[in-house]
């Protein structure tokens, strides 16, 4: 029996009537056509599918669509303000923190949430906070650089 779910995606209200077991990831990709959110493993191990739900990181490959009812979802497509990239996106570009780039969407959103919680993380805290993300190009060093870089930018913005 299908259910109707109302949610806000990147600032836009949406209504979807579908099987309650259907995964949030599949709805985002196949119904809303926002393909920046990726499938990586289907078992919550790699973080490629990570989105922010009411600001909190969620692995959309494991989550049925019903968890999003009444919530605000941010996908990677909703992070920039027009042409102006978020500091974390800028930092990933500046530090060349991607190779194939398939894991990048989830990593960036996770880093946004991490830095909101902890604006001045140590390297250990970054590694612990990002450990649920897999990059098979193994570009972890530059991702660490990018998150440090973004933390600096965001701190100077908030102090400025």
């Amino acid at each position, binding site marked *: 029996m299908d259910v109707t779910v109302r949610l806000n995606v990147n600032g836009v209200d949406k209504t979807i009537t*579908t*099987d309650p*077991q*259907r*995964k949030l990831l*599949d709805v985002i*990709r*196949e*119904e809303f*056509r*926002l*393909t*920046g*959110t*990726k*499938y*990586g*493993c*289907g*078992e919550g*191990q*790699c973080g*490629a599918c990570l989105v922010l739900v009411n600001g909190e990181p969620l692995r959309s490959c494991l989550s049925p669509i019903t968890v999003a009812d009444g919530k605000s979802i941010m*996908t*990677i*497509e909703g*992070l*920039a303000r027009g042409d102006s*990239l978020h500091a974390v*996106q800028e930092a*990933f*570009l500046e530090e*060349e923190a*991607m*190779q*194939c*780039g*398939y*894991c*990048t*969407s989830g990593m*960036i959103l996770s880093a946004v949430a991490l830095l909101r919680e902890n604006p001045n993380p140590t390297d250990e805290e*970054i*590694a*612990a906070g*990002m*450990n649920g*993300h*897999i*990059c*098979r*190009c*193994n*570009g*972890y*060093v*530059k*991702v*660490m650089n990018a998150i440090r870089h973004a933390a600096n930018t965001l701190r100077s913005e908030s102090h400025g």
Partner: protein
Amino acid sequence: MDKGKHQTGRFSTSPRHTGTLPAFTLPRRTFLQVLGSGILITVTDPLALTQLAGATLPVAARIHLNEDGTITAMSGKVEEGQGPRAELSQAAAEELRVPVSQVRLIMADTDVVPDDGITAGSRTTPRNVPEMRQAAATARELLTQLAAAQWKIDVRTLEVSDGRIRNPANGQVMTYVDLAKSKDLAKRFAENTQSDVAVAPVAEWKVLGQSVRRPNSRDLVTGGHRFPSDIVRPDMLYGMVLRAPSYGTTLASIDLSAAEAMEDVVVVRDGQFVGFAAPSTHWAEQALEAAAKTASWRTEPQPVSNSTLHAHLKEHANTERARTDVKGSVERGFSEGNQVVSATYTLAYIQHAPMEPRAAVAEWSGEKLTVWAGCDNPFRARRTLAEEFSIDTEQVRVIIPDMGGGFGGKHTVEAGLEAARMAKRAGRPVWVRWTREEEFTWAYFRPAAVIECKGGLRTDGSLTAWEFTNINAGGSAIETPYEIPNTRIASVSSDSPLRQGSYRCLGATGNNFARESFMDELATAAGSNPLDFRMAHLKNERLRVVLKAATDRFDWSERRKHITPELGVGLACGTEKNSVVAACVSVEINRNRGKIRVLEVCEAFECGPILNPGNLTSQVQGCIIMGLGGALTEEIQFENGKILNPGFSRYRVPRFKDVPKIDVHLINNPDIPAAGAGETPIIAVAPAIGNAIFAATGAHIRSMPIRGDLLKKS
């Protein structure tokens, strides 16, 4: 880089006319779609392009000048994250003397680009970059000739920079934009193959040698890039395929009625192939599950498991057909020595596990098939698809959007075939993306291996004989770089119980692990130390340089004095694909828990002149960390034909917390041609770790992955 081409003046010779070759053409409709405005060439034979290669290609096959002065460059190579998009754009920009931002590179669209073969084997840098440079240099030369003709002056007096041709005598300037509309230019680009006009010498590089960012990287941070699995076509269905429960199993019967009764589901049964296409992946999965529970399977026994694998490989070694390379006489060498040492090393199957599993969208339009796919071999994929559906090759267009990783694991186009089968029946485009479990089970693996080593030592500590046999993993980097008078080196095939294929540096990961681990065992037997023992047998100057660089930076000799049973340091080096690498590592060993942790990796790498330092650093860092996985944790477990760990929860790949302190030292060597760099930096990692553990504990490390649990104190 070809040194010989650096010396002459800017306009050495005229481009060769194609003469009797068929006039070069592109399919006009496709071309207009892809390039927008620019030079247009009439259609006569769409295949002319792909039947040509290398130096026989007309300039127009590689380079187009658009009417706004921007440049479209074309390559059959695939971007899977290792940097050819930046590198090939740099190559075109360098020789056309324009900023790299003015070049737009089209890659891997079989209707538009030349057949540059497979993207593998570190071949893009040594082969395709020079080809792109030569084509771009020829294009620049043709442009300059046209300007000279219009001005009626000697071409050799003109200067070219920043997309402008200048007559220094009177300061007159003509831009590429001015020339772009010339019909004469279009004709010249189409009729001339690349000339041997000089390319820029390394010392004069402006774009090459710089850290140029991947041109489409902004789309990667905004979610705007469409990977193969992101392609959406109008009216598209999502497909899933019924898989056998294990290797050696075939479908005996299945009841498809429940799935067929589902609304909007297209079921395709063709022999062993059963596919389900539906308006969503969820619905396709429901249909698959409804049918799968009615399936009955015929099972052939699969007696080999990962615990009996190496005995099986050895037993089935095809020694009669070994590829053997003999120098001197090892029998004589062993008899001349006073000591013979031998050891056997093993290698597990591992998975590439790229973040994006195999994916494709297939769309039929009458007899014409278009497939977007994640595959590193677009023209081979096109032939495979044409054969499968008994249509002409030119009826198939394969497009490879920049894809989510490969590492040698995506030479084949399975998802494309599956999508095309379903799309043909459905009469609509069909999308297929393998699940992680499918990728871990049915994609091919890096070969497992047994590697047997035997070395003879004289009392003075020199090696007299070397015997090295790799069973099942192939001959990549199987030759020893060390000077040994008598050697017998063999690569032997065997019977692989699982599907196997290429990998990052393929057999070199295993061959270098065995050789470099064994070198440390020999050094100990010879009463020497790992560094002196290697240097005493090493004449390869490039390898000596990286070995010295890595050990100096790491302070290896001093730190080796402070090894404890809990803290080891080790080194390894190697050469493959015309590049050289050396690594020093420090490793923490917890013998109570059987845990190994790599604390530091210092790696020196040299691959000729550095084309893009930023990307090269990424490749070396990535290889080092990927190498940790194969060294310590990655291993496919299987029993009764079933993969037991087909997911990241049970197959451990490196994560953030595993990343050691990494020091990458890139050595620029401008005096030789550039070699590829995406593979070789992986080969020194595992043996350096094993050697550190050996130095700390005395335990012989002879398997990949290294079994920390075997070091556990009982």
